[in-house]
């Protein structure tokens, strides 16, 4: 039976996040959260593998306690067990310390044959996690996975979608995959699974529960990067649509505006 790990992240609804112009901080308070959509593609790929080859899917996420809702959402569509890594010392982690933490926590559940990740998150968008995780898990990696064609004899064969065409690759297990959405759109949970997911047990790890965790390598101390400031890009002045009711008067108004600006 394949042991499958799926890494997921709860993110703020990026369409609704605003920036505090005074502090330059993102205002997340009161902003609805959602599961990173690309992680749901990864989960769907994992569920398809489980349906085809058998297996057990473990979900893992790091975040505040409310990230539990993301795990429950994923349990409802095919996850078998879920791990939430939470606690203040993990806060402020960049991808370096996050990947370290995820791997140490996952190790608590033994070795995984397949690891699935979204290719990036919509809030951070670094795209670094998958490769870091593959390295730390000592796993081979298949990125831009378009289809999973075969898993047998300790190997996986998959098709990658590249800008120049498709590429069929084979890798040994353990293997980490990031997927394209084409064949892996997330599914809706059925009612029973949805209701069951509300009461499923979730394993919660704090910094004290993970074997061999070096506190110097998690959270801010373990991060290789710092973000001193966030600022919005300078946007050009928005265009003005002239729609007065007729082409002739539109043109007249345009001439007026250009004259007002001294352009003509």
């Amino acid at each position, binding site marked *: 039976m394949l042991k499958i790990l799926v890494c997921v992240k709860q993110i703020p609804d990026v369409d609704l996040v605003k920036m505090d112009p005074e502090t330059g901080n993102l205002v997340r308070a009161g902003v609805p959260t*959602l599961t990173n959509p690309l992680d749901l593609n990864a989960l769907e790929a994992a569920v398809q593998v489980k349906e085809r080859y058998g297996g057990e899917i473990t979900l893992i996420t790091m975040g505040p306690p409310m990230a539990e809702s993301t795990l429950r959402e994923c349990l409802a569509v095919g996850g078998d067990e879920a791990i939430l890594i939470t606690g203040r010392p993990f806060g402020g982690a960049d991808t370096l310390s996050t990947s370290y933490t995820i791997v140490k926590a996952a190790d608590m559940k033994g070795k995984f044959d397949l690891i699935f990740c979204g290719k990036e998150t919509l809030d951070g968008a670094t795209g670094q996690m998958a490769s870091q995780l593959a390295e730390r898990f000592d796993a081979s990696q298949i990125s831009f996975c378009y289809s999973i064609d075969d898993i047998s004899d300790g190997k996986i064969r998959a098709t990658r979608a590249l800008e120049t065409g498709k590429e069929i690759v084979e890798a040994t297990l353990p293997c980490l995959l990031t997927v394209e959405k084409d064949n892996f*759109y997330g*599914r*809706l949970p059925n*009612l029973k699974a*949805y*209701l069951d997911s509300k009461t499923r047990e979730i394993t919660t790890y704090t910094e004290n529960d993970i074997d061999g965790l070096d506190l110097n390598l998690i959270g801010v101390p373990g991060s290789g990067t710092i973000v001193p400031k966030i600022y919005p890009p300078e946007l050009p002045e928005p265009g003005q649509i002239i729609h007065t*009711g007729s082409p002739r*008067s539109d043109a007249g108004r345009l001439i007026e505006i250009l004259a007002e600006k001294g352009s003509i």
Partner: protein
Amino acid sequence: MATYNKITPEIAAQLKAVVGERRFSCGADVDPNYSHDEMPIYGNHFPEVAVDVETTEEVSRIMKICNDNRIPVTCRGAGTGLVGGCVPLAGGVVLCTRRMNRILHYDMDNLVVRIQPGVLLKDLAADALAHGLMYPPDPGEKTATVGGNISTNAGGMRAVKYGVTRDYVLALTVVLADGRIIELGKTVCKTSSGYSLLHLMIGSEGTLGIITEMTMKLIPNPICDVSCLVPFPDVDSCISFVPKIKLANLDPQSIEFMDADIVVSSSAFTGIPTFPERVKDADVGASLLVTFVGADEDELDQKLIKLGKIAEEAGALDVLVVATSSNKKAAWAARSSFLTAIEADTRLLDEMDVVVPVDKIPAFLLYIRSLGQEEGIVIRNFGHAGDGNLHIYCCSNDLELDEFKRRTKIIMDKAYAKCAELEGQVSGEHAIGHAKMGYLHESVGDDVFALMDDIKRVFDPNYILNPGKVCDASLVG
């Protein structure tokens, strides 16, 4: 038969003086969009003059000029209609209300909002939400104006629970054909005060007066909602489930119907397979998208459990839950894309918007499909299963226009006759315009049709308001 005058340079000058040069256009300068709505099959008719009005007083002055000179006036909002309602069949003036788009005042004690007619449905919905309120009518076309919604008595997806636009109009300011300004209705919850001219005005498609301000009822926004998709192997079992949902006292907010064809076409159009075509190794023949609202998640879970039980008994393939914000967005975006998806891959299109008793939906769909096969016309459909309102589209990419019209007319004639036989109505929410006038006449009979015309004459003795629409057959033939 009404006779109309052409707009002379003198009359044009008077009209221009009311709105100013920038909001006036005539002849070749008129926006070509003013010659049609969203159903191009019904042809183009250009006005002589178009005015973009901004105030009730301007509308009043325009109407007085036009009435004195017997100039036809066709009121237009966003032009998103589907039956030619805003198309100026007799030329004259198109009076466009899109610049009257201000939300004027919220009365939070009485939960009402006063708005101008050109406010878009999506803008009112969003603004009400920002006030913690909901504007319940939810027609699929979110870029329609609320004034247009009132003029057609638009319904939409939430009509099952909340009713239609009519139920949310408390008061209107209306300019009559001769320019008089009248107030209809008050901000009260009930009235037993003579004939309701307010309700006569609602759904009258700009043939009795021009609505220039309205007071709309709002409700507190429901705290929680959840939707579920209930797939069935066939249309019959799917529709048979609708009354069971109601009888189970589940009080759904909406019950939307989609058959397999429209799901495939929507997936192809959006590129996202939101609604499954196969469930548990079985082909999905038709699905219902059911939405519940409630005070908390527990209440909704109880409804879902009950729904699951009756769905299983009714032969549903499964019950899939749409609970996360991403899934809700995707599901409703897919549902809202149905018409656009049809339009995108269809060269020739005609539609009907019949409403039949809910239990008659399968019989009607079966019949219309057989008609389509007989005439070689592709039939696409979706609709509001909870209230029996079906949107049915006749589509072709191969036929010449005249042949398409000929065959579609055969289908429409027979389908509306079938609709009458099933005790249905010509239009559930798209209204009559000029495209469906003949079918309205057949449906209601001579006496009622003549009464409608009598009413029209009282309001508009010169027949200048939106000529050739609803019950004004003077331009036919």
